[in-house]
């Protein structure tokens, strides 16, 4: 057993878990943050993507003890109170989800993607970088559309902040 301390969605949290505990299970079972999904449990499907120290990580591929001391953002930490994050709003607006199982991972991957491409995104880049996230419902069509739309909104938001 190990003690684990993290900052999750802006709050300091700590707990004790077996060394073999995956980060995703620690988030879901110890912290009750069930928005992060476990799809394949083997880093193939992307449903469990979260941000660890500002980078998109498949949380089923990292041990909770490895993450100790990190700053984590999960899907629950994206919205500002009742105001959805622009990526969440775009998924809603463009029907970027159907069953919703892949959606938390898609959105966390997509926000990371936008952050890594301040120059903006095009469809080919979005599709290539979405390789690690599988969706069976949407055919990706509206997910790609939502990410491109959110990318525009987010870059405008940045421009406003800078001005």
């Amino acid at each position, binding site marked *: 057993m190990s003690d684990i301390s993290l900052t999750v969605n802006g709050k300091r949290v700590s707990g004790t878990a077996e060394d073999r505990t995956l980060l995703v299970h620690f988030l879901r079972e110890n912290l009750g943050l069930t928005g992060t999904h476990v799809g394949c449990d083997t880093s193939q*499907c992307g449903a469990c993507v979260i941000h660890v120290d500002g980078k998109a990580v498949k949380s089923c591929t990292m041990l909770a003890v490895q993450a100790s001391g990190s700053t984590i953002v999960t899907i629950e930490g994206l919205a500002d109170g009742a105001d959805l994050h622009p990526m969440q709003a775009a998924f809603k607006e463009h029907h970027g989800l159907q069953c919703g199982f892949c959606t938390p991972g898609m959105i966390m991957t997509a926000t990371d993607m936008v952050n890594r491409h301040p120059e903006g995104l095009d469809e080919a880049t979005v599709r290539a970088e979405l390789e690690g996230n599988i969706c*069976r*419902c949407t055919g990706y069509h509206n*997910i790609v559309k939502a990410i491109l739309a959110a990318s525009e909104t987010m870059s405008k938001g940045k421009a406003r902040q800078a001005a």
Partner: protein
Amino acid sequence: MNYDAGDYAASLDAAMAAADYAGFAERKAAAAKKGKLRGIGMSNYIEACGLAPSAAVGSLGAGVGLWESAEVRVNAAGTIEVLTGSHSHGQGHETTFAQLVNQRFGVPIDSVSIVHGDTDKVQMGMGTYGSRSGAVGMSAVAKALDKVEAKAKKIAAHLLEADEGDIVIEDGALKVTGTDRQVPWFQMALAAYTAHNLPGGMEPGLKETSFYDPSNFTFPAGCYVCEVEIDPETGVTEIVQFVAADDFGNIINPMIVEGQVHGGVAQGIGQALLEGTRYDASGQLLTASYMDYTMPRADDLPSFKVSTSNTPCPGNPLGIKGCGEAGAIGSPPAVINAITDAIGITDIAMPASPSTVWAAIRATKH
């Protein structure tokens, strides 16, 4: 059972226009200059869905009837709960079914809640498959709404001292046609439950149930056109364009319908190009994870060009044909026809993986 209604030529024309079929020869020549094999393939499908007349499926050996059930509860505050036997696991019933009620009575859409999947609450239902939620599930809702409407009009006519036949329901109110007399929906609902002033002999409350058993299957149909470019050196097939034109009958929510087609097309392209279950000689499954079983990923697919035409289905009260499976039906033959066209052969096995396609190209040279 007869094919009931459909404008098949409209789908064909729409697909060929969206695909710029006429410009294909030029695109094929341009691809050849880059060393690529370009092909175009078409598929015209018609399916029997909206499952299904109970007597018909009984004669085919089904152990159940394929009706659907619905209950509409108008609460004392005028809010409406729709309990449906059609379960939503991503098909958007919560939105589409609520839209149906909103269109019918003009009540705010957020005053309508859709209850499904909770067997403590919902009476027996038959579920979501066979493109049946709209055609069969919503038809059951529509029939329950008919009964609610009839009783609501009786109550309103009594309150307004008007003839029941003169009452119309619009914009969230029950109005005496041709006058400015009206009673708001919520006030009528409250009157149903206070029961202080109801027509003589009427039971209090406003809650109705319906079972709907379809009279026929529904027959969505459409035309799909796929265009591919194949790298003859590697056998890798790229879908460069995919067009779907479907006649789905009446549509309640176009965005959700398009989403259903997108997902189906992706699944069909997966079947045609990528997805296969492989076992070795000893029976060991070789494709047991997503690392080996190739589910389509975003960069295996293009964005799709989707359109619909809307020949009302005569078999159900809403004129809906259904859209859930169409994408997965029309797409595999269109993809395979495009590949065989590109290579100049008549058949290729699915999934047409790069090695299969490469071998087929090699075989044409010997």
